[in-house]
């Protein structure tokens, strides 16, 4: 967006390093990646160029919850990301560890590194990952590290606490990595990628890397016995780690205790790249001591001889309650300072990237004197993510995106992320001209096709019905508009192309948009109605100078919450946990009175 920017990182070789599973996307996460892409971000293009297995998940379900996932060649992905940064005009790269913030009168001025070097700037964005006071645990051993192979950062946490920020601690973990040459794949189920692989980016030229399969194996009762008999040596169970880990990505020892009745758990063996023998046994996250890890791994089918190349571990790190942020991701305490990613208590590359791009955009918009870009919950998963963070906080467990977090899921699909956001990405100067042209072309094609389907109809004659029968569909009894026919659940646009060969040709993208628009119109309309109601509350802005102590009848707890969160709108206020509907009624009365006064 044209600003001179410094990027400070602990290790220039580790830019774009995937500390955990080398995969991008997944349900809810794929949605974020597409949104980032529509805005002009890099993630989708990077994975398209470096992905070695692409799959669309939830294909048997509806379009709203279909999601892309791809595995990356870890090394290629990293190098690709670094190359982009190096070629980015106006961007300086520096290696160093930021240990303190320079703040004057509540305004950020710059940062200071561990060797006393100072950098000054009008905006600072912190994306600290798991590095703040990172502490790796394995068995009863622990050591300071930002992730395996990287140093932790200590001073920065202190600096933030000194500024008045509330700090918290979270835990996450990762799997051991196995040597592919020691795995016996012969009896394991193969999981191939989709053929052809579908790229992520709306402006992609397709997938370029050779595609490779994954394999599936399972834990068994012996694995579980090994874990049970060694559980007292797990830092989680011995009480060494007190912070709670994510429930949706539990360690294998967690799974065995929480779901004692399950006699096996699925493990996906995922290659970490094309030019490496390292394999990521997805599902086997653990912080048990190394000898137990070895024994446990070798109890699993196909892994009897497996060699662990890197051990699994748990890591604890500092994060800062995201309710200390505005929706722009700027901190309430320090003007010009933004937080993005795991520092806000989220987990996942996609969640981090979504916040990163928004913090960057908003820092620039603020420099330009423009209003912050804040997506509403019916506009983007990014909007849902940030609204959840700044309104509800992370509540002792890392926050991950799921489609069920989005109330207006049917409107927020992967396939329409460009239609939702491209114009905005272009307006702020992030998405390129070519992407914008492509988006406009797509929009026009969609409108044309919808019009076409409304304008043309099929006669219920022998020829039509014969064609219908040839693809196993029931006959027509009356002349039917093409759009009407498409509303039948079992009929797709490609079916219609068979029955009505004259139809105009469109790209797959356009077809699927049109299909969704027409097929699910009733539901889409209903969601739109709900959105309208929701927007009424969102549109009631809460002035910044609102004095909550003037509103009689609001309990002290509610008042304190409102003061702390400083919601932008009545709608956001209502989403704060513990703010009762009664309090919202009082607040809305107060606003009306104030307005008329």
């Amino acid at each position, binding site marked *: 967006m044209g600003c001179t920017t410094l990027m400070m990182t602990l290790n220039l070789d580790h830019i774009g390093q995937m500390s955990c599973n080398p995969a991008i996307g997944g*349900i*809810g996460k794929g949605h974020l990646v597409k949104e980032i892409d529509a805005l002009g971000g890099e993630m989708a293009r990077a994975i398209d160029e470096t992905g070695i297995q692409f799959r669309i*998940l*939830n294909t048997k*379900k*509806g*379009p*709203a*919850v279909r999601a892309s996932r791809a595995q990356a060649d870890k090394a290629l992905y990293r190098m690709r990301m670094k190359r982009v940064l190096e070629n980015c005009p106006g961007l300086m790269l520096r290696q160093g560890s930021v240990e303190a913030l320079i703040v004057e009168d509540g305004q950020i001025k710059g940062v200071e590194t561990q060797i006393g070097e100072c950098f000054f700037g009008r905006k600072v964005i912190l994306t600290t990952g798991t590095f703040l006071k990172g502490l790796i645990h394995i068995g009863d051993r622990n050591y300071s590290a930002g992730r395996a192979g990287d140093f932790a950062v200590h001073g920065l946490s202190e600096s933030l606490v000194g500024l008045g920020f509330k700090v918290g601690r979270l835990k996450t973990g990762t799997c051991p990595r196995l040597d592919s040459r020691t795995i016996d794949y012969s009896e394991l189920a193969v999981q191939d990628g989709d053929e052809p692989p579908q790229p992520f980016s709306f402006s992609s030229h397709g997938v370029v890397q050779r595609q490779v399969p994954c394999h599936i194996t399972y834990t068994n009762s012996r694995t579980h016995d090994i874990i049970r008999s060694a559980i007292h040596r797990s830092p989680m169970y011995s009480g060494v780690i007190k912070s709670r880990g*994510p*429930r*949706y*990505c*539990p360690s294998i020892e967690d*799974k065995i205790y*929480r*779901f004692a009745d*399950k006699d096996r*758990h*699925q*493990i*996906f063996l995922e290659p970490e790249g094309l030019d490496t023998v390292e394999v990521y046994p*997805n*599902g086997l*996250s653990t912080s048990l001591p190394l000898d137990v890890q070895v024994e446990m791994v070798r109890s699993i089918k196909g892994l009897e001889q497996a060699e662990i190349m890197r051990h699994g571990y748990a890591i604890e790190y500092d994060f800062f309650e995201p309710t200390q942020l505005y929706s722009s991701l700027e901190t309430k305490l320090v003007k010009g300072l933004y937080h993005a990613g795991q520092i806000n208590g989220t987990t996942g590359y996609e969640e981090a990237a979504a916040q990163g791009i928004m913090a960057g955009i908003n820092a620039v918009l603020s420099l330009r004197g423009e209003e912050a870009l804040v997506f509403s919950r019916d506009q983007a998963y990014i909007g849902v993510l940030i609204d959840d963070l700044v309104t*509800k906080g992370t509540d002792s467990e890392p926050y991950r995106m*799921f*489609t*069920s*977090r989005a*109330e207006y*899921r*049917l409107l927020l699909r992967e396939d329409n992320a460009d239609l939702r956001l491209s114009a905005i990405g272009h307006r702020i100067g992030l998405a390129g001209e070519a992407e914008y042209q492509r988006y406009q072309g797509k929009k026009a094609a969609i409108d044309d096709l919808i019009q076409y389907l409304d304008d043309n109809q099929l006669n219920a004659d022998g020829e039509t019905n014969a064609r219908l029968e040839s693809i196993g569909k029931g006959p027509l009894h009356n002349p039917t508009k093409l759009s009407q026919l498409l509303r039948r*659940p*079992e009929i797709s646009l490609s079916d219609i192309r068979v029955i009505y060969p004259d139809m105009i040709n469109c790209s797959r993208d356009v077809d699927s948009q049109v299909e969704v628009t027409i097929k*699910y119109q009733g*539901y889409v309309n*209903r*969601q739109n109605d709900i959105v309208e109601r929701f927007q009424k509350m969102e549109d009631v802005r809460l002035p910044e100078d609102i004095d909550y102590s003037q509103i*009689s*009848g609001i*309990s002290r707890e509610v008042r304190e919450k409102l003061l702390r969160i400083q919601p932008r709108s009545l709608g956001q206020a*209502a*989403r704060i*946990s513990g*703010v*009762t*509907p*009664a*309090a919202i009624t*009082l607040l809305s*009365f107060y606003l009306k009175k104030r307005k008329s006064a």
Partner: protein
Amino acid sequence: MYQEDTIAAIATPPGEGGLAVVRISGPDAEKIARQIFLRPNGRDNQLRSHTLYHGRICDPKNLQSIDEVLLTMMRKPRSYTGEDVVEVHCHGGNFLVRQILTVILTQGARQAEAGEFTKRAFLNGRIDLAQAEAVLDLIRAQTAKGAQLALSQASGELSKYVGELREELLDILVQVEAAIDFPEEEIELLQRHHLAQKITALADKINLIAASYDWGRLFREGAKVCICGRPNVGKSSLLNALLGTHRVIVTPVPGTTRDVIEETLTLDGLPVVIWDTAGIRDTDDQVEKLGVELSRQHLEKADALIVVLDGSVKLTADDRALLHSAGAKKLVMAINKSDLPLVIDPGLFETGEHRRVVRTSALSGTGINELKKTLRELIVGCPIEPPVTVTNLRHRSELVRSADGLQRAVDTLDRGLPPELAAIDLSDAREALEEIIGMVSNDDILERIFSSFCIGK
């Protein structure tokens, strides 16, 4: 809206009673209590929360003792209103209680407005919306049964039950959502038709309590009953017999009653508004004509009819016409004048859930109790007793909305549409339930997914 001042009011109904309660709520409740309350032997009157103290209420101006009382203080937030609350249990008797209240008011409390304690309880989050509404119903209830129904709601029975229904709905949603968000997990999920079955069963439950509204309404507002029949069959006599008084003029002249006479009576707790009407027949008399017209109007409005037949003469064309015009309305045929030799055979009439026959004699009083009993059964008649009763129109319409949402979800599933569309329908249904108890949605679903399924590769 309320000011944060201290309010007081007599909490028990007016009139003579063994005991009465005066309630004070607000920031000064404790201060006021300590000024007017003296414990025996001059013990200090530090008040512990939720403890019952014995002592006297005195006028602090002249230290004159007003009454011997029990007093308890409930410190916020553990009180009815969520504020500091003091309750004075004193002897009943209008004068005494008023005197105590006056002393309290002179100490700086303000007389509470109707429903103000409840309003505060609601605003402070002590009770939910459904409970608050029920308390207001309670205040307005006209009969003992109506009050009982409202009371059970105020104490949260409806909220509790709706809460249970919501739980059931969440369980269903969890199944759907888990399948959507975690398809790679080995989660055993319900088959479509099983899911549809579960949803339908839930919709049935919701429909049942939604239907109970009509039932509850009868108890709150009273049922409307119209006594109708040819002239001179004994309608007015029957009304007198039902009331046990000589309310209406009775003469052997047909066409005695010209206007509609309205009376109320209670049938085992069920309040009934009962109308005695002019005899229905073809007539040229202008005045009588108007009366007949009025009779017909009331017949239409009534929840149930008592069609009076003169059992001592043959059924006439007018009788038949009237029975016919009643259509499917609930009615009891009272074959009156049963003290005389019966000409009409009660067995001739088709009876059923909505039509009953009773033999009465307004003159001797036989069959009157039977008539009352039959009438009540006919009106209240409810095949399955609902587990809770809905007495508020808003609650009923939300329940109907919820059941509709569930029905749509079943349709969506039946049509083979994707599960996230069914989730939209289910969410509508859930929102409707949550609006009854005035609850804002939260992350309950994800919470449940994690506690019931093993998620995470």
